[in-house]
């Protein structure tokens, strides 16, 4: 029997899973794995920092639903991917991370570039493996892909000591996965499905509260069918933007801290919340004790631990959103009774709120540029046909609010962890996954400065993404809180130092750099950016540092006390 090295087995195992691209940075302990990569059809994108590689893999996974793969070496390579791993855990992103480890004989001896990778990863992965025998490598890769991409998606880490990558092993055919402790439930219990429809048929003011689980489950078509059949208004969380078309009459936009008045108020006044693939995050609920006080809850989630964690559910349904939505639609089709009397009045009320309290901002002709204006101009110029990736902060909220999403996987951001620096590398990953799509990162200056070394990656690897940099000269969201809650004492939020010169930085890294500083310059600059396809382009727009994100439900406050603008402060 011919034998191969553990490293070759690793790469063959990745090929067997259908991997077409990996993102990584080599180093001492992972070196053996990089050699067979040269002979593999798998593309390796060489990031400039392992954190960037991790976010690239996440961007790839967000854009496709497929498992993203990141490779890093031991020690600092491994510690640098902890942020993307935690990010992927919080946002249920399917990821497999492969880290080199020092040789088995050196482990525990504080060897060069040694870190307790699996110990660190324990809290920021769905599962982790430390390979102890070379024979395990291929099987574990298969298990890891299964774990990452089924049930509640998430990151899985495989730590492989260097000597095992070099050890010889026989290549064997796949055996069926044997994970007796892991059997995710996909279809909802029939009794619960009936109870859910009973509740829905008797409710007068229902709301569909939709989270990222609907996108993960590819359930947008089922959601649309169910919402239309049931005539229930829909709110999509930050992780679910694009799961339901914003242009639809039943769409209310985003709930939560910076949600629309309509979505926030409809939840507060509802008598039934149908929560789908969502986890009652504090950024949605504010103070959970005052959240949707009159509502009964139907909670559908593939992760049973989310049901009842924050809010008790009258009808708990463990299952995959796609399957359960289909079950709910079928059950509803059996019912023939009339809709409850209040239902049409409810939809009218919701429509009235939408009329009275749309999202708004004021862009004067010669005043400072408003970020919201930039987002709207970009939307118009692209006809909304783009994958939008964002960093974390004010620009993220404005992008989510003012972009009208029409399909899933076109909005990629860091929701749960709020990882600044996410946008540039995640956009690169998305563009690698979808080379024919326009991929635009809407980033903030603070966020951008955390990972901008990856500009070099995009230029060097020929990945023509676009970045619209909303430069308001500071950590805008923190500054907003200082304005509102710290008596305008601006501590450490000013980035308006004159450095870096963004267009020059772009040019120095092989990008095209463009700048716009007035409202009139915005649209032409966007057109210019969109006209360049053969190189990555950065468009810096100087925006108003005073602008704040509205509406706002202050952290821990009640959603009843939503502030619509500065005029609502005292």
């Amino acid at each position, binding site marked *: 029997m011919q034998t191969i090295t553990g490293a070759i087995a690793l790469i063959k195992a990745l090929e067997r899973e259908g991997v077409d691209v990996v993102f990584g940075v080599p180093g001492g302990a992972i070196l053996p794995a990089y050699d067979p990569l040269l002979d593999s059809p798998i593309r390796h994108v060489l990031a400039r920092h392992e954190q960037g590689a991790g976010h690239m893999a996440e961007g790839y996974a967000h854009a496709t639903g497929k498992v993203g793969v990141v490779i890093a070496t031991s020690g600092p390579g491994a510690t640098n991917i902890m942020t993307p791993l935690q990010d992927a855990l919080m946002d249920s992103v399917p990821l497999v991370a492969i880290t080199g480890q020092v040789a088995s004989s050196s482990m525990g001896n504080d060897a060069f570039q040694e870190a307790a990778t699996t110990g660190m990863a*324990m*809290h920021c992965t*769905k599962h982790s493996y430390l390979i102890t025998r070379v024979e395990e490598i291929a099987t574990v890769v298969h298990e890891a892909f299964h774990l990452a991409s089924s049930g509640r998606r998430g990151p899985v880490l495989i730590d492989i000591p260097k000597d095992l990558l070099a050890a010889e092993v026989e290549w064997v055919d796949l055996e069926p996965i044997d*994970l*007796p*402790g*892991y059997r995710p439930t996909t279809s909802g219990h029939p009794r619960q499905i009936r109870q859910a429809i009973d509740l829905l048929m008797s409710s007068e003011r229902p709301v569909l509260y939709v989270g990222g689980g609907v996108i993960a489950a590819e359930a947008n078509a089922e959601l649309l069918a169910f919402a239309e059949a049931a005539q229930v208004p829909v709110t999509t969380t930050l992780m679910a933007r694009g799961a339901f078309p914003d242009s639809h009459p039943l769409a209310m936009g985003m709930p939560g801290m910076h949600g629309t008045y309509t979505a926030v108020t409809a939840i507060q006044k509802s008598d039934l919340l149908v929560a789908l693939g969502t986890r009652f995050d504090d950024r949605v609920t504010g103070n959970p004790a005052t959240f949707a006080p009159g509502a009964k809850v139907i909670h559908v989630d593939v992760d049973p631990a989310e049901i*009842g*964690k924050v809010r008790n559910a009258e009808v708990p349904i463990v299952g995959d959103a796609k399957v359960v939505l289909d079950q709910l639609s079928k059950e509803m089709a059996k019912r023939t009774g009339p809709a409850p009397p209040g239902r049409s009045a409810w939809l009218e009320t919701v429509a009235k709120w939408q009329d009275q309290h749309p999202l708004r901002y004021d862009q004067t002709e010669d005043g400072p540029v408003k970020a919201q204006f930039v987002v709207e101009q970009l939307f118009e110029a692209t006809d909304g046909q783009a994958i939008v990736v964002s960093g974390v902060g004010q620009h993220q909220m404005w992008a989510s609010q003012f972009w009208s999403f029409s399909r899933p996987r076109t909005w990629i951001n860091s929701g749960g962890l709020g990882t600044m620096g996410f946008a540039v590398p995640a956009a690169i990953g998305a563009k690698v996954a979808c080379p024919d799509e326009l991929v635009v990162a809407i980033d903030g200056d603070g966020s951008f400065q955390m990972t901008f070394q990856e500009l070099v990656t995009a230029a060097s690897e020929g990945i023509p993404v676009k970045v619209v940099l909303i430069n308001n000269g500071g950590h805008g969201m923190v500054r907003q809180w200082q304005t509102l809650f710290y008596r305008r004492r601006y501590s450490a939020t000013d980035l308006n130092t004159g450095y870096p010169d963004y267009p020059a930085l772009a040019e120095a890294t092989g990008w095209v750099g463009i700048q716009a500083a007035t409202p009139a310059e915005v649209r032409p600059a966007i057109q210019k950016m969109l006209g360049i396809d053969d190189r990555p382009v950065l468009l810096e727009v100087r925006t108003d540092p005073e602008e704040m994100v509205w509406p706002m439900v202050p952290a821990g406050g009640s959603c009843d006390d939503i502030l619509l603008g500065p005029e609502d402060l005292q």
Partner: protein
Amino acid sequence: MRHTLSVTVEDKPGVLARIASLCARRGFNIRSLSVGPLHLPGLSKITLVVDDVEVEQVTKQLHKLVNVLKISELDPDDSLEREVLLARIAANSDNRREVRDAAEVFGATTLDVGGDSITFELCDHPSRLGDFLKLVEHYGVLDLVKSGRVALARGAKAKAVTNQ
């Protein structure tokens, strides 16, 4: 409120660390923990006693660990619970007889007799260990060690653990 959980796990490296660190991370206060291999190859059983928690969250979060196979909560009124205690009690030639008599009331075994102490072993229900300690406390406890709790459901409630 105290809960006793019986957790069947795959005997894989790190499984105890995963359980312990999950409890720490989620703020579940571990009162007692004991672990040992089952009669079935590749499996271990953990008896976990947690305090002041929503036991449903503990159970659900533990179930998310890939190596956790089965969790059952044991009703204290319908289960058998044991802890082992080793205690070195001060005893000199004057009161040695008295201390041993007291300990024997509880069925404690004498493991070692020294010049100024006696070491007892007692394996019993946790509440009986408490009673025993109260009784011997005034002689002077020189050192003491207690095992974690082990527990099984009683006859009718108990299901055989099989390898699927």
